[in-house]
């Protein structure tokens, strides 16, 4: 749960009448939304470390790719992003 996963920002949008600035982040092809509130300077194509839907820092590309590959090899990415599919009739909310 404390894991932070690096991903690439593919788009940035203001949602809810501009109240919230969110990015779509690709984690090796899995797209999730992440808030940019903690790193307002982040731009499209930046790599960011995301923890529970919030980007907490910008990382360089090589570092991001290396870390992502490690986490993926260890099976951690799936555990974190495909939340609890194993649970009986999980009413998971997805956007």
């Amino acid at each position, binding site marked *: *749960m*404390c894991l932070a996963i690096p991903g690439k920002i593919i788009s940035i949008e203001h949602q809810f009448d501009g109240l919230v600035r969110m990015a779509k982040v690709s984690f090796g092809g899995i797209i999730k939304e992440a808030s940019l*509130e903690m790193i307002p300077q982040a731009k499209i194509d930046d790599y960011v470390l995301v923890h529970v839907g919030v980007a*907490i820092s910008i990382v360089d590309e090589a570092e991001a790719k290396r870390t992502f590959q*490690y986490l993926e090899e*260890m099976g951690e990415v799936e555990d974190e992003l495909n939340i*609890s599919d194993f649970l009986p009739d999980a009413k998971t909310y997805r956007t």
Partner: protein
Amino acid sequence: MKFLTEYRDPEVAKQYLEEIKKVVTRPWTIMEVCGGQTHSLVKNGILELLPEQINMVHGPGCPVCVTPLNLIDKAIYLAEEKNVILCSFGDMLRVPGSKRSLLEAKANGADIRILYSPLEAVKIARENPDREVVFFAVGFETTAPANALSVIHAHRFGLTNYSILASHVLVPPAIEAVMEDDESSIQGFLAAGHVCAIMGIMEYYPLVERFNVPVVVTGFEPIDLLQGILMTVRQLEKGEAKVENQYTRIVLEEGNMNAQDIIYTVFEVTDRLWRGMEIIPMSGYQVKSEYAAYDANQKYDIDIEEAPENEECIAGEIMKGIRKPIDCQHFGKKCKPENPIGAPMVSSEGACAAYYHFSGAIHKIEEQLS
């Protein structure tokens, strides 16, 4: 061992291991505070590769493990009796409450949803204006900004049907509590990288001074951990006690100030009970009075009794580094991930679950039993 076959750069790992072996001359006990690090150390087989003189003990940095029993009961009560949509991180679901877990309450029909992010819970609240939504906001400093941000979002949207059941805990007071325990034999700490990514490293200087122990801020990957251990052992062998930062690629001295601002907008520091341990002064966050409308504790009249902990579980001693999972008589026998007695057997960051799944300890127990 997974480590040497699967990690891409076993050569680098070997070099660190050699270097650690060269530097170490005496036994040292080092605690990794963070459950994510425990998980990585055990899963990658690092504990077995370290020289015998280095005794790694596993700290209290597993948010799921330290969330009090009473709060789990409260979450279940809200879902069952107040008809709220109770949202939680998946890890919390199997943790035993005094009567049942959230998962069992869900199977009985309570509307309990597993989410990846607290921000999703705010969306659910927005889309279900006729329902009350509560997010079970557990976590350390890493997760606090996200949970605080969910409250800020709800406030910006003018929602009145969203609140959080906060159970936030902090690393530095936990280090203090662990050091103050008479049975503690810890001589150095690996501090949690992502906690420091948010909070920075200033908080550790007074601890180093007071307890005269090295604190090395460390990442999560095998090479990070080996490097962090090497840095700690070097200090110990030289008789030094300093704060050092192994994880400089992510952790800045001052942390992430935006994240800290968000935390302090919504939360204030308070005393907290740690499951299996005790009340640690000023060791957690509670929702500030300005945001009381978003605090499930204040919003709902939660009428439940304080239930006693299961005394068979020695999780508290494990999280203080006094004992190891294999020292627990129930480990792998009465207590298994499918049927846990204590929280550390549930969470992927819990020491008992890590030992159960990855350390090979379970084969020894099965041999004994057969």
